[in-house]
């Protein structure tokens, strides 16, 4: 069995109209996307972010999108998990650059609005698609929250600890997971595990295509966007497709620099209209008055995506190689203060944070905070 993921569907929107009307249309986009997905016969849960792994380890992640923003020393991630029918439970693990201060339901139109800004062309939704010798200390659970049909747990621990926690909680990790978890844990031992219960979603009345946006606020001096996790569970030759949106105060420097498999497809000052729209969404008050919008369209083999994306909003090319996953923490040492990303990266990285999905088969047990 192969789980499929479809990227957020985009659609043509008419030119500026009164805000209420515009927002109403954005909501209709989601409905259109849902209908499209249904027509394409998607019957499995889909996520708007992350590396997705099915119960048998098969992965068919077509494209992901993540929104990350950085303002006043806080990185904001917005991602969305979409219900695409089917049953069972699935999960996703997302590495984070620091301990989040909040994990809440995100706004309803942020991702769509960013997509419209940079790609106002109608697209169809993609479809596709014993003897324990060294018992790892348990991963520390530092936050639990239930949002709609999503049970979210923020963990602190090394790769082994998080891997054991995942296994104990029914996540079936793919063979590359141990190395990938260590890759992230060395830099930041913070992970967000999300499990999506399709049956619970159905009982809640969620329709195919309904998304559950998640907004994670993470104070950090070195903002980065996890990219390598997008290839989790994929063969080296399999493609990774992802859209990453960045909103910074100034034109940022990126590390690694954009290239053929990671082109910068949008690079312009954000319009007042866009910023107003973003700011009016739930929990998006942090969006600054002026900002620079960048979009990276990642498209290349998973085997080449061995790094993340570090952002220096000063534009001076001082992004941290460690934050980008290009240098080991031990080898590089802590980045000097002047190398750290300044205060103002109004980063609205709208990248499909879909990336994290380490999903899994039937989950063994439920989180204690299940408050459905």
């Amino acid at each position, binding site marked *: 069995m192969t789980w499929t993921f479809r990227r957020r569907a985009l659609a043509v929107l008419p030119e500026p109209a009164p805000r209420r009307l515009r927002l109403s249309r954005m909501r209709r986009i989601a409905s259109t996307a849902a209908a499209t997905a249904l027509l394409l016969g998607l019957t499995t849960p889909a996520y708007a972010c992350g590396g997705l792994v099915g119960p048998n380890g098969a992965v068919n992640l077509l494209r992901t999108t993540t929104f990350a923003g950085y303002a006043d020393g806080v990185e904001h991630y917005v991602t969305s998990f979409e219900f695409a029918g089917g049953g069972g439970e699935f999960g996703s693990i997302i590495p984070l650059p620091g301990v989040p201060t909040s994990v809440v339901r995100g706004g309803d139109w942020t991702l769509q609005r960013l997509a419209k800004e940079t790609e106002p062309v109608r697209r169809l939704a993609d479809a596709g698609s014993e003897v324990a010798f060294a018992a790892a200390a348990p991963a520390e659970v530092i936050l639990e929250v239930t949002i709609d049909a999503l049970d979210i747990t923020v963990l602190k621990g090394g790769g082994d600890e998080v*891997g*054991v926690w995942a296994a104990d909680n029914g996540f079936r990790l793919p*063979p590359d997971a*141990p190395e990938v*978890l260590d890759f992230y844990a060395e830099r930041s031992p913070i992970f967000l595990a999300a499990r999506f219960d399709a049956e619970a979603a159905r009982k809640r009345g969620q329709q195919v295509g309904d998304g559950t946006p998640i907004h994670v606020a993470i104070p950090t001096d070195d903002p980065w966007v996890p990219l390598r996790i997008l290839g989790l569970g994929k063969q080296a030759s399999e493609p990774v497709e992802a859209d990453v949106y960045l909103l910074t105060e100034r034109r940022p420097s990126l590390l690694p620099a954009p290239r053929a498999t990671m082109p910068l497809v949008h690079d312009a000052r954000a319009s007042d209209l866009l910023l107003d729209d973003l700011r009016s969404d739930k929990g998006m008050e942090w969006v600054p008055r002026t900002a620079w919008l960048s979009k990276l369209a990642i498209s290349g083999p998973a085997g080449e995506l061995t790094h993340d994306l570090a952002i220096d909003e000063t534009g001076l090319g001082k992004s941290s190689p460690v934050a980008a996953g290009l240098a080991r923490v031990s080898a590089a040492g802590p980045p000097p203060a002047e190398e750290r990303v300044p205060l103002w990266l109004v980063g609205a990285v709208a990248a499909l944070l879909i990336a994290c999905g380490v999903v899994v088969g039937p989950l063994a047990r439920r989180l204690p905070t299940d408050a459905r």
Partner: protein
Amino acid sequence: MRARPTALAVASALLLAACGDGGSPTRVELTMHYSAFSPRTLTVPRGVPVTLVLRNDDPIAHEWIVGDDSVHERHRTGTEPVHGERPTELTVPGLAERTTVVTFERPGDYRFVCHLPGHESYGMTGVLRVV
């Protein structure tokens, strides 16, 4: 200074005890880390019991299944969730170690593979050479 010859003698005795007639060890250790076997080639003697210590350094489970092509073909489509009944087919939980004793009667090269989903294609294979 007298301790050094003594230590060497003990080490030599242990080494001889761990080898079969052909000089191949009768106790071998195999590590699983980042979903790869190390070493990837093992050489053991035929006709004598060989102790294999399988150490899994990963937080996820792995399998060690050794045999001819028919064995691996069967496991590629098998449904047994856990192995442990046969000494040549073992599941090793995450961060755990298992030991098995096998007498290989016929010389030849036999592949050992982790048949958990995706692991073989990820490269989790090796060769056991019986001499």
